[in-house]
Each structure stands twice: as C-alpha cells, then as structure tokens.
C-alpha cells in the first residue's frame, strides 16, 4: 500500500510543482498490476459501512461490531460468547443499586493515554447523557462515582440483573482525548451534534484505527501494546463496505478481499465450488417468527370476532406449517428449526421447550373445527422482502400451507422501510418478525419488548394487543431478580407459557453465511460479529 503525504493547500506554481512531484513519486513506485495479498493482513468486505466511530451516536449493531475492533468494554464476550473480564478485572454488588468495578492496571489507549477511573466515569456520563442516541442501552444506570484511580461505582435505578450484559456493549473512551477534541458530549443525529469522535477513534482494543474513508474503507493496524495476549497473527485489518452483492462476491473471486460478510445465498454454492475459497455457515441468533393479532377483530375481516384469540386456532396455524420443508428447501438446510423465541446461545433457552408442534394437517383441521371454524377463516399475512433471508418466499410458502386447512390468506409483501412502521402501528394481522436479543443476549429482552403488555415502558414491540398477566408478572420480577438461577427459571416459565399458548409461531434461526479464502481461519459467531482478534491468516 502506498501512503501519500497530505498536502496543505498551496497556491500557484508551488501547487503545480507539488502535483508533479506526487505524480512522479507515484510512477516511481509502480506496483505490479494485481498486488499480491499481504501476508497477515485480513481484508474483508461487508454490505454496509459503519455509521460513525462514535460509540454513543448510533444503535446499529453492525457498527457496534466494527467499533469493537478498536474499543474494549469493561466486560466482553469470549469465544463461547460468555461474559469475561476485559477492562474491568472484577466486580461486586455492594448494595443492589451500587456495583463496584476494579479496573485493569497498566492499560494504555492507542494514543498513549493511560487508562484509569476517570476514563470510565467520563465514558459512562457520556453514555447516559440525554443527547446520547444509544443511552437506553444502559438505561439502568443513573450515575457513576470514582472510588480511586482504578475503582469505580455504578449507581443503578434499582436492582438490575443484566448490568454486565449491557456493559459488554459499552466501549470505553479516553477522557483526556475527548477533552482535547471537545468530544465529551456525544454526537447526535437529532440535535445535529457532530464530534471529532465521529470519524476518529482512540480505544484500548486489539487494533488501532489507521484511516477511515466513509463508504470506501477503514484500515486498522495491530496494537502492539494491547493488554491482552493476542490470539491472532495479523498486522493489519482492512474493512471495505461494498453494497452491491454481485460486486462484493466479485471482489472475493478476484482476490481483492479475503472474506465477504454476508455472502448472498444464491452465490453460496458457486463460491463453495471455487478452488481456494470456502463458505462457513451457521445458525445465527436471529430467530424468525410469526407474530399474531390479539385485538378484537382482524384487519382482514372487520366486524367478525378474531379467531386467533382461541388457542386452538393458533395451534392449528402452527401445526399447518411444514417447518422441515422450509428448512430444507428455502433455507437450503442451513437454518435451525425453532420453537422458542430465543436461540440456544441466549440465556433463558431451554431444549425441553424448544420443540415445535409437529406438521399435521389433519390435527390442524380438527383443532379448527373444535374452535368453531371448520371451513377456516380469513387473515392477513405480511412480510418484508428485504430484511430477512428468503422472507418473501417463506411467506408465500406459508400462505399456501395454510390454504390447505382452509385459512384464506391476504398476503402483503413490502420493503422494510414501509413494513416496519406499519407493524409498529399495529396495522398487520400475522406478520414476520426477527429477533436477535442483541446486544444483551438475554431472554429478558423478549419478555420486555415482545411478550409483555404494551404500556409505554414494557411491550415496545407488542403493538397487537398480546396480554397475559402471568407473563407480565414474570417480566417484572425477572427485571429485578439478582439470583441468576431464579431469574433464568422465570424466563423459562414465561417461554413455556408462550409455547403452550402458541402466542407466537417461531420458524427458525436464520443462518449467517461468510465466504472466505482458504488461507483465512476465523471463528464465526451467532451474533454475526467479525472478531479479527481471533483470526489466523496463512501466508
């Protein structure tokens, strides 16, 4: 890679001279037409770019995953996605609303500032600032106090069991650096605040941000002074956003990048068959499900009582979906058939509950007849066509499966930009929804957002009148239960009720597919994060 010096604006002849010099310098170091891959550089491409390098300026999970290359949180996810100490070495609950964190000593930021309690205090205050776009990611915390140079206390609104899960997504910034660049307040779209931190980054992470060109690339170089023992052999990481699927695959095939994330499904077989390339596919955390309408009437059949209020009807709809065929045909065998709203890696998952109702058309018909709908009924079914893998095809398949038990489907498929607002407004009957439980990776997020009755604080993504007092009670007690075993039991109990009452129809965990050169060895995680600090690249 050639590095050109940055020129200040010069005028007249001097500027022309500078151009000529640069041109000559460029010609003098002519690289061969297709530069060979640098050993120990990982070059990867994804479909989108980071929105900002400011951790507090967005809520985009892809952006957070890239920021993690530069920044460390107090606690982080290890190779098994379990929480482990990072910038905090230990912690204790002094009282239910006060957690004390011991900080790691001898850590320095990329620009040389030593890491201490002041940085944590400044970061947390920036995080809970009313102007921070992602302040709700740490909504339980109301304040932070420095105890000594390497000890801080977090003050909580009330007892809260998921503090560590939340902290795993809070990246620590340097206070002197923020002061120097006038970035102590977070950047914010709504108020139009842009800070130096939006396109510069100074963390403690495994790699330093060397350069950032929006929509072109970000280059990271290894942080030789990283506090942790590196498990990678990289000297540089280059990330390139390439929006067009075909171009992204072309970049891999032509050897311009070593890895593409995600790879379009239609190209998987072709890439897997290409010498020197491989495709790695595993089920992700994202559970795809059908949500139902629990209001008095269906939008598709106004004036008639809503049949879905009867549990037998809901079970009939579930029995009528051939999940295995969807898994084999539409997902090419790469998804994981699900019967719970959370994936196995998420706290609260239980194999005993995660058993789908079997595909049985006769049973479905019998259940409909028992419920008083021997000839079926009419309902809407809505899907996005650009958000989940094969979302449109899955909906088409389900509508024809339901037709077999006499359920008339009024199918609507549209772009995510109009689909999700309609969903939020409760304008849909049966609709497809994906839920990854990120960033906390805990079943509580499902209880709080999807299952609990919508009352302004709970049930934020429950627009269609689902309400079960048992689940509401469980959600509220799980929210403050600090005994982990008891709390997990509460989550499981809520998921058992959800399953027994068929409040949702889970379909599967959709796969995440990465394609890469044979030379690259990098673990794939169900949360879809690319973690280059676990990557090995062969020469």
């Amino acid at each position, binding site marked *: *890679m*050639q590095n*050109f010096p*940055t*020129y200040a*604006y010069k005028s007249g002849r001097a500027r022309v001279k500078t151009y000529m010099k640069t041109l000559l310098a*460029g010609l003098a170091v*002519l*690289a061969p*037409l*297709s530069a060979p891959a640098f050993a120990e550089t990982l070059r990867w491409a994804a479909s*989108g*770019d980071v*929105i*900002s390098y400011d951790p507090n*300026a967005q*809520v985009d*999970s892809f952006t957070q995953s890239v920021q993690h290359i530069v920044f460390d949180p107090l606690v982080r996810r290890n190779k098994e996605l379990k929480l482990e100490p990072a910038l905090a070495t230990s912690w204790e609950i002094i009282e239910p609303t006060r957690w004390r964190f011991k900080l790691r000593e001898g850590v320095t930021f990329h620009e040389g500032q030593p890491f201490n309690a002041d940085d944590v205090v400044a970061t947390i205050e920036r995080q809970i600032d009313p102007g921070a776009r*992602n302040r*709700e*990611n740490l909504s339980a915390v109301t304040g932070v106090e420095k105890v000594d140079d390497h000890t801080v206390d977090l003050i909580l609104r009330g007892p809260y069991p998921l503090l560590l899960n939340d902290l795993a997504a809070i990246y620590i910034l340097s206070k002197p650096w923020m002061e120097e660049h006038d970035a102590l307040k977070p*950047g*914010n*779209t*709504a*108020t*139009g605040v*842009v800070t130096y931190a*939006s396109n510069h980054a100074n963390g403690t992470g495994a790699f330093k941000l060397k350069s950032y060109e*929006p*929509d*072109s*690339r970000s280059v990271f170089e290894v942080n030789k002074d990283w506090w942790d023992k590196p498990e990678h052999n990289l000297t540089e990481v280059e990330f*390139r*956003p*390439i*929006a*067009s699927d*075909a*171009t992204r695959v*072309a*970049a891999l095939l*032509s050897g*311009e990048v070593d890895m593409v994330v995600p790879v379009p499904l239609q190209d998987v077989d072709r890439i897997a068959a290409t010498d020197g390339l491989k495709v790695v596919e595993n089920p992700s955390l994202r559970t795809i499900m059908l949500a139902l309408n629990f209001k008095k009437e269906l939008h598709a059949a106004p004036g008639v009582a809503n049949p879905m209020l009867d549990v037998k009807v809901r079970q009939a709809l579930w029995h009528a979906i051939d999940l295995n065929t969807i898994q084999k045909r539409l997902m090419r065998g790469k998804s994981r058939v699900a019967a719970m709203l959370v994936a196995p890696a998420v706290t609260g998952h239980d194999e005993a509950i995660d058993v789908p109702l079997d595909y049985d058309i006769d049973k479905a018909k019998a259940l409909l007849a028992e419920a008083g709908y021997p000839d079926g009924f009419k309902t809407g079914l809505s899907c996005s066509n650009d958000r989940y893998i094969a979302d449109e095809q899955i909906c088409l398949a389900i509508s024809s499966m339901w037709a077999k038990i006499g359920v008339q489907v009024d199918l609507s498929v549209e772009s*995510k*930009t*109009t689909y*999700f*607002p309609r969903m*939020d407004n409760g304008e849909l009957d049966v609709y497809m929804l994906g*839920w990854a439980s990120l960033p906390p990776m805990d079943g509580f*997020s499902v209880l*709080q*957002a999807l299952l609990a009755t919508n009352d*302004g*604080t*709970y*049930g*934020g*993504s429950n627009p269609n009148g689902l309400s079960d007092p048992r689940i509401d009670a469980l959600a509220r007690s799980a929210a403050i239960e600090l005994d982990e075993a008891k709390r997990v039991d509460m989550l499981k109990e809520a998921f058992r009720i959800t399953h027994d009452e068929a409040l949702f129809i889970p379909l599967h965990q959709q796969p995440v597919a990465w394609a890469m050169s044979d030379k690259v060895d990098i673990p794939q995680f169900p949360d879809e994060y690319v973690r280059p600090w676990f990557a090995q690249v062969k020469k």
Partner: protein
Amino acid sequence: MLRLLSVRLFQAILVMVAVTAIAFVMFRFVGDPVAAMVREGATQAEKEALRMALGLDKPILTQFVDFVGQVLTGDLGTSFRYQQPVVSLLMSRLPATLELVIVATVLALAVGIPLGVLCALKPNSVFSRLTQATTLVGISMPTFVTGLLLILVFAVNLRWLPSSGRGDLVDLGFWQTGFLSLSGLKSLILPSITLALFQLTLIMRLVRSEMIDVLSSDYIRFAFARGLPRAHIYGRLALRNALMPVVTVTGLQIGQLIAFAIVTETVFQWPGMGLLFTNAVGYPDVPVLAAYLLFVGFLFVMINMAVDILYTFIDPRLRTR
C-alpha cells in the same frame, strides 16, 4: 436582454419551489425513519422521544414551512444516518462523482468523435456497420449489466483492474483525488467506461449524422473542386461545423451524468453522491434524499438557464422573443 433574464430567473425559481414541494411530499411515503433509527426492543416512549427530537410529530404543514425556511437559509439539515450537516456531506462526496464524470466525458468525446467521423466517411464499410451494431448493444444494455460484465471480465477473470472503490487517494486539502495514484487511476477505468458508454454512443451517432449532412453541403463540394487536401476538408472545414450540436449535447449530458451516476456508483462502490443517495433510500435518510433532489433540480435549472442564455448570444433571432 434584461427582461429575458428576469423571466428566466422567475421560471427557475418556480421550478425550484416545485422541486422542494415534491421532495418534501415524496418523503412522506418512503417510510418512517424512526423505525430504522431505534434499537431492537425500544419502548414506545423511546420512539416518541426520537420522533419529537426529529420534529416529525409536528403537523405536516409546519414541517414543510420549517423545511422551506431551512432551504432558504442554505441549511439542509442533518443526516439521520451520518449525523453530519447534509451540505458538507454532499460536498465531501462531490470530488468522487466529478472525477468520474470528467473522465467519462473525456472518454466519450475522445472515442465518440473519431468513431463518428470514420462512420460518416465510409458509411458502408464493414467497420462502420460493426461499430454501429456494437454501439447499439451498448446503448440498449442497462448500466448495471455493463458494469457487472466489465467486472466479471477485467476484475474476476483477468484480474487486471480492481472491481470496486476508488483506490488510494491523495488529499489536496480541499479535494481528495484519485488522479495522482496508480491504484486510483486503475480504479477509474471500469466505472468511467460504464458511465461513458451511453454518452459515447450518443456522440458517435450525432457526429456521424452531422458529418454526413455537412459533407453533402455545397461549400464542401466546392472545396473538393478547388483541390484542397482531404485532411484539411474533413478535419478543418467539415468537422468544425458538425461539432456545434455536439457541444450543446455534451453540456447537457454532463448534468445528466452527475445526477444519474447513481447506478454506476452503486455497482462499483464508488463513494460519490450517487452511492450516498442509494444508501439513504434504504435507511431512509430523509434529509439526504431531499437535499440530493434539490441539488439535482438546481443543477438542471442552472444548466438550462445557461444554455438558454448562450443560445441568445449565438442566435440573435431568439432575442426578440
């Protein structure tokens, strides 16, 4: 003259007002940005707070008046996605688009004019017929197909050229250029060919028909009769007259290229204004969409006005109207 100018200006302002209104109304239908901006599991209260902060809770008319007020002061708001002022965001992407457009235009002229001349001089030769047929394919193929084909051949199979991006850039302080590095120049080749293809065909056909017209006119016949050298007749006497309409069309086409490089930029991940626009559609980043539409509207209004005024200088008959 002054009267004509003021009439033109008035018309331009009307057009801009219409564009502003359309830009605003259109974005009521591209979707709700709040849904894209909140985190998974956001509460109703969170969504409402964001809606208020963005001013989306106000009555539509108030929003429109605010929008027009902003436009008049030159402040087009802040991008929802990048949270930077939209104007500076567009300006930071302008060099990429302009460099691509300039190279594409030069390419189209440098190849289109000689080809057109050759086709006019020997209209029935194999070469002319072949050129005509090939360019017909070029003009009827959608840009993204051309782009992907070029990528397949030159990036994937031959591995001569990069498939995407701008390569290494040299920062001149006010302008990031790809002209001064080898990888930057190499990166320019495929996208500029893709973008130039349509214009190249257009120019070639225009030159060809103009040349054929001019060559059959009296003064050319007299020049032949006088025994002037062929090169002088074709090059100096005929081509110069044939190029008049080419200049007009090229001028108008540059506007087209700047405004509609969207597809080419998306296929080649060219970080210009077109790519910014495509990314904004999917978000939806309403301020960027609106600003881009206004920018394009403004560009065309300016180009048309300039062309109108130029015409009146060239052709005195138009001045009296």
